[in-house]
């Protein structure tokens, strides 16, 4: 156990120095494994993981879903989604914020990325909210928080990685994220209602749209709604495997962008290059995490943790709460994907040995990571907001996200108390 704790500390040292996360985990994973089992088995393990990890048909799901998100982002979908949501919700108090939330939820469903959602929606929704004199704090808070939905609402790259790391069904993980995603939307809506009830000037009403305007706005987003339904519906009914769904999604995104007339040769090239680079970034972390995970396993940390919790005679829920607390603290320092890949190999065996459902745990981990995206000091979505809106202070944005963090903590408590909310839909598959 000591050697694994030293290894974890050294990973943090390398990461703080600025070594790329995947490479840092690979260095310590390889060195630690070599220290325990010797040179020959280490080189054999290294060759196997570095060659076999990316040569996998099932993992083509990662670039294909990223590609789908990139095509759809370039198709100018965000404005259409926002207009559609605004036409239905804009006339309520805080209605523009609600519309932003709904647009964030829909956009994240197809982009799969929290940062892309926050960055895109800030450009679309912020000018509109400012024109209606919304407070900067509420406006930026709702975009930053709405952006976090990207990693929970399927298809989510983080859920794919969790499924790969733990050998769980990716289709079930996707479907399991639906109800928690809807609960997030409802709770964020409640947070907006709370803020605007306390200070009506923070979110004044917009204009009421006619039904003709609403139907016209809906029509513009129908293509993307159909694509989402085909992918998730196909997975749910069992027509597609996740990899096939990803290929259909990428192809659909391509044709969607083509029909919208947003694809020139240059934009197509940009989208493809962006996708391959993002894929390489993710895979080097996945390879590093696999090497690190092997080291942690041969060092016996998961077994030691299980034995320790047995000796302590703690209730499983107490251990779970301890793990969640660690996630929340780590989330304040680490980037979301690396946090998940670094910790899941350590905690997953413990969680399974305690009798918790692995699909449920995957969703809980994602929800905690969502919280970490909007909590200081690392809160990446907050920094994305700051980068796209330099005139708004970080303090204002953090103040704005506070009610949403509280809503997230409520949601986390609800999902821990009622696992059925996560597991009901997958149980029907």
């Amino acid at each position, binding site marked *: 156990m000591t050697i694994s704790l030293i290894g974890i500390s050294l990973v943090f040292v*390398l*990461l*703080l*120095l*600025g*070594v*790329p*996360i*995947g*490479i840092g985990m*690979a*260095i310590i994973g*390889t060195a630690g494994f070599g220290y325990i089992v010797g040179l020959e088995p280490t*080189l054999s393990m*290294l*060759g196997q993981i*570095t*060659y076999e990890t*990316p*040569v*996998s*048909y099932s993992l*083509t799901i990662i*670039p*294909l879903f*990223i590609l789908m998100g990139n095509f759809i982002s370039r198709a100018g979908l965000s404005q259409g989604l926002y207009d559609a949501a605004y036409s239905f919700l804009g006339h309520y108090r805080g209605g523009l914020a609600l519309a932003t939330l709904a647009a964030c939820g829909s956009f994240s469903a197809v982009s*799969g*990325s*929290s*940062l892309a959602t926050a960055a895109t929606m800030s450009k679309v929704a912020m000018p509109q909210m400012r024109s209606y004199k919304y407070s900067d704090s509420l406006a930026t808070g709702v975009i930053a928080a709405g952006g976090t939905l990207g990693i929970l609402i399927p298809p989510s*790259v983080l859920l794919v990685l969790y499924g790969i790391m733990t050998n769980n069904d990716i289709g079930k993980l996707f479907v399991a994220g639906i109800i928690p995603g809807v609960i997030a939307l409802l709770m964020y809506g409640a947070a907006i209602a709370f803020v605007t009830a306390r200070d009506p000037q923070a979110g004044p009403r917009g204009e009421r749209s006619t039904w003709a305007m609403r139907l016209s706005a809906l029509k513009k987003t129908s293509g993307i709604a159909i694509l989402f339904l085909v992918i998730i519906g196909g997975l749910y009914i069992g*027509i*597609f495997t996740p*990899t*096939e769904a*990803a*290929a*259909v999604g990428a*192809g659909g995104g391509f044709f969607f962008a083509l029909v919208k007339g947003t694809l020139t040769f240059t934009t*197509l*090239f940009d989208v*493809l*290059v962006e*996708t*391959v*680079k993002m*894929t*390489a*970034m*993710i*895979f*080097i*972390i996945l*390879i590093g995490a696999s090497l690190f995970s092997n080291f942690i396993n041969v060092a016996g940390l998961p077994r030691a943790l299980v034995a320790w919790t047995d000796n302590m005679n703690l209730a499983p829920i107490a251990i779970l709460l301890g793990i969640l607390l660690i996630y929340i603290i780590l989330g304040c*320092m680490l*980037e979301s*994907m*690396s946090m998940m890949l670094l910790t899941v190999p350590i905690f997953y065996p413990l969680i399974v040995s305690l009798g918790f459902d692995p699909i449920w745990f995957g969703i809980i981990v994602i929800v905690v990571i969502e919280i970490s995206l909007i909590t200081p*000091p690392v809160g*990446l979505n907050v920094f994305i907001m700051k980068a796209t809106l330099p005139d708004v202070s970080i303090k204002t944005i953090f103040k704005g996200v506070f009610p949403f963090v509280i809503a997230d903590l409520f949601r986390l408590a609800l999902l821990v108390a009622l696992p059925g909310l996560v597991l009901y839909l997958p149980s029907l598959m």
Partner: protein
Amino acid sequence: MKKTHWLLRIFHNYLSFIMASLIFIMMIGGLVDISFRYLINKPIPGMSELMALGLGILVYGSLPLVTANNEHITVDLISWNKNRYVAPVVSFLVNVFSSLMLFTISWSIAQAAMDFASYGARSSFLEINLSMIAWVMSAMAFMCGLIFIAKSFPGKSSNQDKEKTP
């Protein structure tokens, strides 16, 4: 990539084009395979094998692009750049550590390539030479290591990679 040699820029552009074409072909291939499978019950033979091997090349082939553009995902809690004495040392260490790991990865994949060559390993359906695929992956990992080495020299580029999350 602003201050790099024109030869490297050309290489960067060609590699970007090859990788972009590869992902596009994988997308179209996957889509056609599924369409044929469900519509006329005739999937394209060996498509899943091609996609798997294509992904291997795509991952390692795109790594030099990520490295050259400083786009690896890093933790950005401490700004070493603020101290002009510490920054070059940290940058040197980071790039040297990273390059050593990439060379090790390259070497281990090269070992796998030699193993494949020794018993003539081929993919199960299309009988593609696996040794050749592994050599390409190894060469690309080696190139990524070289880029890290080049970055460890002061004035070439910074080690403070941009933070990005998918």
